């Protein structure tokens, strides 16, 4: 739908949708303009330069420094840790997620700019893993944010993580890593799940404190 509208206008200008007010929050959309000619080039560049946001959410964070440093050097694939969510492409969920972290994850994920990808790391984001009966671990992360690639195991070996990263590279090149599109299309559903977990108005109450303009 979005692409259609831009083609009709034909200017290549980023369009601004009308600001709708539903359920008490303001939304705004700038659809991503896909240049047909340059798209393969951009896809190649996206594949070759994936910046990881530095947000280690669980025990998998312990395997991040070895991944980035000597021995398993991820920089040779053009990946690099980036502390700023605005510049990052890949969100690596490294391990179990507690509700307190999930709030930050959602906010950070929404701060990232499209196209953005999520890779979950370990069994816990898939179904809770060893913490399946814990009252403070989110069981199925896929209900709250879209995940492109999941790596099973506790803890997955570094080689497994690298295999996952290769997979996400392949997906990016083929244009299949479309978690951000799914998030946009099914925003109502994700939003409802998040609200069910945290209670309505959690953004207004807690997240506003972290980001004043929220």
């Amino acid at each position, binding site marked *: 739908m979005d692409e259609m509208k831009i083609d009709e206008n034909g200017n290549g200008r980023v369009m601004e949708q009308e600001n709708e007010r539903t359920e008490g929050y303001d939304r705004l959309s*700038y659809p991503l303009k896909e240049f047909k000619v340059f798209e393969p080039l951009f896809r190649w560049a*996206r594949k070759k330069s994936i910046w990881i946001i530095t947000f280690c959410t669980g025990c998998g964070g312990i395997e991040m420094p070895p991944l980035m440093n000597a021995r398993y050097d991820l920089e*040779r694939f053009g990946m690099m840790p*980036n502390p700023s969510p605005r510049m990052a492409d890949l969100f690596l969920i490294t391990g179990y997620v507690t509700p307190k972290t999930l709030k930050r994850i959602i906010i950070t994920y929404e701060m990232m700019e499209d196209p953005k990808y999520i890779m979950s790391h370990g069994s816990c984001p898939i179904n809770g893993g060893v913490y399946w009966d814990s009252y403070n671990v989110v069981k199925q992360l896929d209900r709250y944010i879209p995940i492109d690639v999941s790596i099973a195991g506790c803890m997955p070996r570094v080689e497994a993580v690298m295999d996952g990263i290769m997979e996400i590279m392949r997906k990016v090149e083929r244009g299949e890593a479309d978690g951000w599109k799914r998030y946009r299309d099914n925003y109502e559903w994700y939003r409802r799940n998040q609200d069910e977990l945290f209670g309505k108005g959690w953004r207004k109450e807690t997240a506003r404190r972290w980001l004043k*303009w929220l």
Partner: protein
Amino acid sequence: MIDWKLVLEAIGMVIYATFVGFIFMGIERKAMARIQRRVGPPIYQPIIDVLKLLGKREAISHGFIYDFGPIFALGVSITALLFIPIANFHLFSSNADLIVVAYLLEVPMLGIMLGAMSTGNPYSAVGVQRGLLTMVAMQLPYGLAIIALAQHYGTFSLNSIVALQGIHGWSLFVPALFLAFIVFDITFQAMLGLEPFDIITAPAEVSMGPMVEYGGKHAALLFTQHAVQLFAETAFFTVLFLGGAGNLGVFFLKQLAVLFLAIFIASIFPRFTIDQAAKFFWKWPTILGIIAVLLTMGW
């Protein structure tokens, strides 16, 4: 009348500088990686990064100044570049271009600061404070080094400095100017934003500082600006101390030598805090700079 040759040369030089600047950034990352016993990214990695950043959807803007900052920075960097006599291309050379270039190379920082200040992110704000203080701190030794040079050669023209070095040997080998070289190299580290003076973007402290809110095309602009700036700064260094060059190949090699010096220093030193950096700049480099100036007066 429009001097078409000059225009073409200028455009060509900007494209060449951007490209070589990106390659320099790649070499920097690769060399650092090799020192850290890693494989490192391919040398053309910064070009891919910029391409990717250009292909990102960008929906955030913090107003006009936020957009204007990176453009301003890039513009100033290019202007500075065009004043430097690179090999046999003397584009905007004039009588006092030493001063012009020395200060145009400082201004892009202000552009980034302008944009960063308008984001409202406290990390940006802290980064801007740090950036401005670094600038103030490094002005003094930087100025002293340039005064020593101008004093020694008796001219403010980069062209004549290159020509005089061609006759009397590189200024690196003049004892008084060697002190100036050391001073300039220390400030050079801060100009490139490398350790021990990468205080502005210190990722573990202020998470990228001024850059924290930039993403997508703004970040791509800033990367391009950094590439041009890197080229211009290494070129300036080469012209001042390594005697310039007759053709682009030799010039490139000399620039590379300068770059590697910076990389080696950066990979063995941790980062200063901002007040230590300011104190450091106003102590040893300043003393050395004053000695250099005095020596050039006596000679």
